[in-house]
C-alpha cells in the first residue's frame, strides 16, 4: 500500500526496471546475511534492520479487556439503548464442560461488548470488541511516538533502543513495570494512561503530550500485541487500578513520617538492595527498637546499591541486570504526579505494589499501610535533600563511611 499513491511518478521507473522495484524481503535479507558472513562481521542486533515503510492498517477487531469508563454500570446507565442486564450471562466451564460459576452481566445489543459484571470486583472490567479502526488509530500513534524505541513490531528493538539501559519494554510480553497495580495484576486502562502521561524519569520515556483519547487507542493497540497467556484476552481476568494504600495518615506530620520512614526502611531491610542511609550502628539500634534481633554487621558496601541475582531482566532476549536506585544519586522512575512534582503518594504506591519483573516485591500486605506511606515520605525526603546536591550528598556519605 505504501507505493500506491506514487504510481504517477514511479510508473516510468517501474516499467523500465521490471522485477527490481520490489525485491522480496527474503532475497534482501538473504543477501545481507551472506554479505555479513563473508566479511565475518559480528552479528548485528535487530535494532538496525533495513528501514522500510510499514502498513499501519490493522485488519481485524480484537477482543480485549477494556475499562475506559469509571464504572461499567455508569456506562450501561448512560447508554441504556445499548445494554441490557442479563442474569447468568456467562457460565464458565471447566475442562470437562461442567459449569463452574455463573456471572450476571450486561449484554451489548450491538454485539461489540462481551462482558462480565462482578459485584464483588472493585474495578469493573469488561471485554470489548475493539474495532480494527480504533486499533489502526492506536497503531498510527504508536508508530509515531513509540516505535523509535519500542520497535515497529512492538518487540522493544526500536532503532533508538540500541545500547539503551534499561531496555524498552517488549510489548509482546504484555507485562508492565510501573503501573502500580500489584505484581500479579493487570493494570486498568487508567493506570496505563497515567504511566504514559507521567513518563518514567531518567529514561527517554517522557510524559507524552497525547490526549487521553489518543492514549487509550494506543493502549488498546499495545494490548493487542500481548500473548494469550498475559490475560488481556481472558474473559475472566480482572484489571486493577493502582494499589490501595488508603488515606494519607501523615498529612499533618511530615517530620514524623520521615522519621518513621527511616525506621521502617532500615528495619525491613531495604538496604539489602538499595543503599543504607544510616550507619550500621544505627541500623542495629532501629532493629532492636522494633523488637528484632540486630545482626551487628552488614555488607561492606552498604552505601552502594547492589545487584541481587533475581533482578536479572531477561525478557525479550536482553540479558542485563538493573541496579536498584540509590535515592540520593539516581532519579527514580515513577515518583511524580501528573503535575511533575515528587509525590509521597506515588512513591508509596510503587513500594506497595512492587515492580513486576524486578527484585522489588509487593510490600502491600507485608506491612501496615501507614508504614508504606512513611517510606514514601522518607524516600521523597532523601531525594529532595540529596539528589542533585553534591555537597549535601558528600557530607552524608562521608558520615556514613566514617570520614572516608
Amino acid at each position: 500500500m505504501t507505493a500506491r499513491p506514487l504510481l504517477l511518478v514511479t510508473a516510468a521507473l517501474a516499467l523500465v526496471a521490471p522485477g527490481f522495484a520490489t525485491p522480496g524481503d527474503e532475497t534482501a535479507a538473504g543477501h545481507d546475511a551472506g554479505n555479513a558472513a563473508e566479511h565475518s562481521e559480528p552479528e548485528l542486533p535487530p535494532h538496525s534492520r533495513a528501514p522500510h515503510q510499514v502498513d499501519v492498517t490493522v485488519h481485524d477487531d480484537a477482543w480485549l479487556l477494556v475499562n475506559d469508563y469509571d464504572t461499567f454500570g455508569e456506562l450501561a446507565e448512560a447508554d441504556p439503548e445499548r445494554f441490557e442486564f442479563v442474569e447468568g450471562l456467562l457460565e464458565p466451564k471447566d475442562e470437562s464442560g461442567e459449569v463452574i460459576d455463573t456471572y450476571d452481566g450486561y449484554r451489548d445489543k450491538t454485539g461489540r461488548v462481551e462482558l462480565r459484571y462482578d459485584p464483588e470486583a472493585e474495578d469493573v472490567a469488561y471485554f470489548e470488541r475493539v474495532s480494527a479502526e480504533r486499533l489502526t488509530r492506536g497503531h498510527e500513534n504508536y508508530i509515531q511516538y513509540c516505535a523509535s524505541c519500542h520497535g515497529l513490531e512492538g518487540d522493544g528493538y526500536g532503532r533508538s533502543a540500541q545500547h539503551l539501559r534499561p531496555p524498552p519494554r517488549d510489548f509482546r510480553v504484555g507485562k508492565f513495570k510501573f503501573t502500580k497495580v500489584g505484581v500479579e495484576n493487570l493494570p486498568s486502562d487508567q493506570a496505563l494512561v497515567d504511566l504514559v502521561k507521567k513518563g518514567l524519569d531518567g529514561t527517554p520515556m517522557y510524559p507524552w503530550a497525547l490526549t487521553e483519547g489518543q492514549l487509550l487507542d494506543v493502549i488498546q493497540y499495545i494490548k493487542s500485541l500481548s500473548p494469550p497467556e498475559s490475560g488481556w484476552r481472558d474473559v475472566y481476568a480482572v484489571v486493577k487500578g493502582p494499589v490501595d494504600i488508603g488515606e494519607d495518615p501523615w498529612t499533618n506530620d511530615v517530620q514524623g513520617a520521615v522519621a518513621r520512614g527511616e525506621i521502617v526502611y532500615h528495619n525491613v531491610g531495604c538496604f539489602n538492595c538499595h543503599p543504607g542511609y544510616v550507619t550500621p550502628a544505627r541500623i542495629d539500634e532501629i532493629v532492636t527498637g522494633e523488637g528484632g534481633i540486630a545482626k551487628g554487621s552488614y555488607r561492606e558496601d552498604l552505601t552502594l546499591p547492589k545487584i541481587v541475582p533475581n533482578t536479572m531482566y531477561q525478557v525479550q532476549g536482553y540479558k542485563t541486570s538493573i541496579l536498584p536506585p540509590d535515592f540520593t544519586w539516581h532519579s527514580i522512575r515513577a515518583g511524580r504526579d501528573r503535575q511533575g512534582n515528587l509525590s509521597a503518594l506515588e512513591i508509596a504506591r510503587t513500594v506497595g505494589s512492587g515492580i513486576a519483573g524486578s527484585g522489588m516485591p509487593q510490600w502491600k500486605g507485608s506491612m501496615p499501610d501507614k508504614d508504606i506511606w512513611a517510606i514514601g515520605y522518607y524516600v521523597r525526603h532523601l531525594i529532595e535533600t540529596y539528589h542533585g546536591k553534591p555537597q549535601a550528598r558528600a557530607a552524608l556519605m562521608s558520615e556514613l563511611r566514617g570520614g572516608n
Partner: protein
Amino acid sequence: MNRLVSLVSRARVRWLATPAALLLASTAASAQEVVDRWGPTPPASTYGPRFDSLFSLITTLIGISFLIVLVMLLVPCLRDNAKKGKKAHFDHGTSLHDKRFTAVVSVVVFIVLDAWVLVRAMGDLREAYWNVPAPDTPGIFKVEVLAQQWAWNFRTPGVDGELGTPDDVITINELTVPIGRPVVFNLTSKDVIHSLFLPDMRLKRDANPGAINVAWFEAAKSGDFDILCAELCGYAHYQMHGKLHVLPEADFPAWEKDASALALAAYDANDTEARWAWDWKE
C-alpha cells in the same frame, strides 16, 4: 557624504535630529536592561562572552545602518509628497558623481559592516570555537555523546580517565562536568540528526548519524544549565532536553569517585549490547 549631509539640511528636516538623538540615547541607556530582561542567560563558558560582545558590535553596526535607511526612507515620505504642479527631480543617477558615491558607500559598507565583523569572527573561531583541544591533551574532560530519539546518552571516563572501561559513567539526559577544564565532545547519533545546544555555554553542534562531530567548551561558572536539541528530530524534539551540572573543583573528584563506584556496581560484563564507545576523532 557631504552631499548627503547637505541634502538632509537643505530638506529642512533638522527637527528630525532631536527625536532621533533622544531615541538613540534612550535606546543605549535601556540596552543593558533589555538584555538582562529579554536576552540570553549570562555566558557560563570561557568563550561565551565573545558571543555577547560580537553580538553587541553587530547590533550597533546594523542599528546605525538601519537608522540611516529609516531616515532616508522617512524623509521623502514626509517631505516629497506629490503636489499639484510640482514635478519630481529628474535624475537617472548615471553621473560619474553618483557612481563614485555608490562605490564609496559600497567600500565603506564592506569594511565597516563585513570586514570588521569577519575579522572578529575569524579570531573567535580560531581562538575559541574551533580551537578544539586534541584528545591527548592533558587535563581535558572527554565526553562521548550518543544522541537518539529522544534523549542524550552521555559517557564520561570516570576516575581512570579512559573511555570504554567498566567504570565509565553513562547517563541519560544528565551530564556532570568539572569547572575550569576543557570539556571536549565527540557527538554522533543512533538514528536521526540531532543538535547539542548548550545555550548558557553558547555552544551548538549537530550529532549526525554515521559521523562523529567534535565540539568543546570550558565552563566558567558552576551550576545547573540546560541541554537542548536544536535540530528537528521528530515528535518529541521539544522534550529532548537534559541538564548540565557544572561542579566546582572541590566537589568534582568526590562526585567522580562515587559515580565510578556506582557505574562499576551497575556494570554487567555479559551485556555486550549495552556497550558503546569509539575511537576518538580530533
